[in-house]
């Protein structure tokens, strides 16, 4: 989950999010490179009385400042495309879970074997127990097996919503009349929080998502207990 004074991403809990984190470090390095160059040049221009008012052409420097940015863009695009294609790899999920966005809660359906479905409402602040997180806790969490590829099918019953879990690098729009798919693979057990990421009305900030990743036997016991 997010924490006070946080500057970067949350710790990655999936291989894709780890790749995104490292890609962000790489791209930020390029951003700092360009920004420091521009800042240096600006300060250079502001700290001299020398002028040159008779420039006629500048073929060499124009070639350089066309080719260099093109190279930089390629250096950004190649790792980006690598991760994009990695996200779309065929990975044969072992479990499919459907989630529908509503105003203002999420509902989940585990229908691979039996018909298990439940709603997931935010716990109001007055009803929180000590140690629970304000505006993030829900009554029924999305329990999933860890270290297993899960297919999430996401849609909406009313307006646009977006199902997001930053720690796993997930954000998929929930669009009425459309079924969007994303795959999820948590490498560690624990609780992973997210919030609705598409404006959907007055309680848009009050429909969080909580994933509970546990070992497969516990997931199986839980799903039986929920039927």
């Amino acid at each position, binding site marked *: 989950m997010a924490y006070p004074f946080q500057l970067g991403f949350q710790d990655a809990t999936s291989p894709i999010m780890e790749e995104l*984190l490292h890609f962000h*470090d790489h791209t930020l390095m390029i951003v700092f490179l360009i920004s420091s160059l521009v800042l240096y040049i600006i300060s250079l221009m502001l700290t001299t009385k020398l002028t*040159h008012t008779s420039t006629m052409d500048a073929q060499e420097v124009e070639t350089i400042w066309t080719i260099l940015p093109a190279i930089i863009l390629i250096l950004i695009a190649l790792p980006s495309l690598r991760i994009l294609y990695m996200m779309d790899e065929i990975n044969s999920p072992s479990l499919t879970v459907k989630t529908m966005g509503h105003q203002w809660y999420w509902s989940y359906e585990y229908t691979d074997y039996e018909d298990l479905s439940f709603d997931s409402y935010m716990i109001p602040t007055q009803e929180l127990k000590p140690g629970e997180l304000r505006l993030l806790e829900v009554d029924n969490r999305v329990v999933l097996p860890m270290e297993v590829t899960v297919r999430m099918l996401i849609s909406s019953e009313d307006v646009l919503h977006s199902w997001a879990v930053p720690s796993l690098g997930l954000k998929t729009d929930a669009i009425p009349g459309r079924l969007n798919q994303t795959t999820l693979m948590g490498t560690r057990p624990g609780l992973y929080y997210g919030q609705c990421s598409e404006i959907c009305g007055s309680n848009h900030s009050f429909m969080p998502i909580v994933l509970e990743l546990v070992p497969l036997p516990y997931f199986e*016991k839980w799903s039986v207990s929920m039927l």
Partner: protein
Amino acid sequence: VQCIILHPHPPRLLAKRLRFHIVGAFAVSLGVAAFLKFAVAKPGKKAYADFYRNYDSMKDFEKMKKAGIFQSAK
């Protein structure tokens, strides 16, 4: 009388300054990039590799279960 007019060579002060500082600017920005690569990006990758090298997810799970955070595993 032959008059030789000597035209002074322009001192090219701006060009000299530019050449010196453009090289410096590229050096500084590449230095910043190298610093970020070796002080941020590489340690970040290493931190994840070190964490997962001997990671025991079941041991982690048992610790969390004992803390009572799970709904599905009391």
